[in-house]
């Protein structure tokens, strides 16, 4: 399944890509919020890992824009410290879950994504979509 990861740190993208490709995801990444929106419009990702702090656009704005383009997107937020208030806003705006960076346990992130993946698969089956 296709998965979009947005983070301004290239090495975090690489690290997540390694793990998720091994799990069978088709991973696309970007460090730019504007590009993330373009990619979403083009490919309608159902799974997104999204950094809360992005240059040029706040994580919550980006989250809302992504949701507007694709309301079915399952978006998991990633956040550094000192932004608990933002987390609350994000969950209120439809984010599915959040993880604090650095990840205590990478497996938990993979599990959350796995759950989201089964959910999307269930939706697709219900809608009679093959993909």
């Amino acid at each position, binding site marked *: 399944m296709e998965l979009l990861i947005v983070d301004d740190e290239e090495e975090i993208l690489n690290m997540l890509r*390694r793990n998720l490709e091994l799990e069978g995801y088709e991973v696309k990444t970007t460090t730019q919020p504007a590009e993330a929106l373009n990619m979403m419009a083009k490919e309608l990702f159902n799974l997104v890992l999204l950094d809360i702090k992005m240059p040029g656009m706040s994580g919550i704005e980006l989250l809302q824009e992504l949701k507007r383009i694709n309301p079915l997107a399952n978006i998991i937020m990633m956040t550094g410290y000192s932004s608990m208030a933002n987390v609350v806003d994000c969950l209120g705006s439809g984010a599915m879950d959040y993880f604090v960076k650095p990840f205590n346990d990478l497996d938990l992130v993979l599990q959350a994504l796995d759950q989201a993946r089964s959910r999307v698969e269930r939706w697709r089956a219900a809608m009679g979509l093959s993909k």
Partner: protein
Amino acid sequence: MKILLVDDEEMVRKPFEKILAGSGHEVIPAGDGVEALEIFADRPVDLIITDLRMPRMDGLELLRRVKVLKPDQDLIIVTGYAEMDSTVEALRQGAANYLIKPVRLEELAIAVDRIEKQQARDRKLKEHETRLVQARKMADLGLLAGGVAHEINNPNTFVRGNAQTLQRFWPMVEQYARQAREAGVEPPAKLDFILQETPKIIDAMLEGTNRIKKIVEAMASFTWSDRDLPLIPVDINACIHKALDVLAEDLEAVEIKSDLQSNLRPVRGLPEELVDVVVEILTNSVKALQGRPDPRIEITTTEPSPYEVHLIVQDNGPGIKMEDQGRVFSPFFSGDPRIGQPGLGLSKVYAAVRRFGGEVTFSSEKNQGTTFIIRLPVGGER
């Protein structure tokens, strides 16, 4: 006030002594300049009242020497009409005031009273200034700490994430290596060593990132600006009980006296962070009390007005060194370099209390102990 009274004539000194002691001052008598200087060098006084003409060392010379030792020492010269030149010289040298003989006792009382009031004003001003400088410094440090925390957090995330990734990948390699050997493939030298050491390498990396994580966490908590979770009413007494539970082991050797006002109004804050505040303050006291005789901590809560709750923690430790007093709340400052911790406890306290709209201050005296006062705004009805 502590007043050093210097005159070679006991006849003059005695009535002075009587009226000053009567107004509640502590009077230390001295017979001449030399004796006065010896006393002064030994212990500080708030005011010196000295005759001008005395044997061995006169008042002017005493003034000069006192000002070398302590430039802001207050001193009143007692003089006669015939000594006007010396009096002017004394004022030029920094005497606070002069009294002309014969001195009327009410004049003396007024002069002393004026100096006492001036000193109180100066103290208040100084305290205010110190607090202002402190607040400005802490705001700058908060900005710095927050910035550094953010910048370190990203690399720490991918170092940690990659170590975790390696941990996930490694068993596969390990298993393949064992299978290959069982299948008769000649192993490279030291394969066993590498198989044995690699998981330890990964663990050490994870442990390192864990430590970085903790420091970053503390530094981030130090920036209060963007941590604006909604504050709720919190029972400070409950936080104290919780903190005492958490620290039960560390407090075993310490006598705890608590005087918690019942039925306090709740304060505005976050319960876990307020428990942390109490834990950190107590931890600081426990550290100060290490190796001290009869270690004791007194915890008091009061509600001096309907708008404010005070938490007071007093220990009978060695006190905070004068030169350290300006840095107590600074991140990474530790009064005792032997204690191998990053010194973030009290800066966390400062940050949290500020975030809750309160204020934390302390007073400390050598060998008398340290008292922390945390003032928190009331956040609801009882």
